[in-house]
């Protein structure tokens, strides 16, 4: 079953997609890597970030891998390129 989530793009991922945020529909249960691949399917140029990027799901960091992600309607997922604050 699918659910609608809000995806936030920051830094280089925002430049690549040309978006700050978008609502998308994804499976309720998937791995963090599958979630990333879903984003790359929509924005193929995101693939250049593959080695550097992590996600934040409901404001908690999640590395790309086999870790299961369980999503509910309205959940916030963010694309997190390498940090450079301070």
């Amino acid at each position, binding site marked *: 079953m699918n659910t609608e989530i809000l995806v936030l793009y*920051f830094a280089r991922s925002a430049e690549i997609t040309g978006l700050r945020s978008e609502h998308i529909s994804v499976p309720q249960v998937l791995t963090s890597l599958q979630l990333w691949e879903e984003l790359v399917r929509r924005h193929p140029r995101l693939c250049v970030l593959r080695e550097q990027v992590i996600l934040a799901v409901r404001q908690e960091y999640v590395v790309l891998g086999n870790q299961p992600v369980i999503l509910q309607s309205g959940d916030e997922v963010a694309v997190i390129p*390498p*940090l450079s604050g301070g």
Partner: protein
Amino acid sequence: MNGTNRGPQDLIKLTHDKLSADAVSDAVLCPSCGAVSMFIGTTRNSFEGKKVIQLEYEAYVSMAESELKKIFKSIREKWSTVQHICVHHRLGVVPVSEASVIIGISSPHRTESLEAVQYCINALKSTVPIWKKEIYEMDVKTNSGILQTCAEVCR
């Protein structure tokens, strides 16, 4: 504010305004503390040999605040006598030589706040979702005398 003993304060501000060292030191001053340690991150005029004109910062604001609170919590676990902790981070355009971040921490004695500030800036840089983009001046000679800017994402 400084005349009374408040409980330990966690103070966070993400702002487009210019930062002030006095504002941060005033925020963490307390009558039972003998020490305030501070770190100020400023915009450098060069990065990897290229001339930087200005920096631009963006943040995942709500998560940046929650990550900062996690850092503050772990500071209080490591240095139990730390009193107030204040982080001001600037967003948007920051010209060269201006502060992008100011951290201030007070403690009764100096060692705790000195160590805690060092920990805080290292943790901030590695865990708080904030990004800077350097705006470079291109080499004039290779561009027919026209000054151009080029935005790149900083690692």
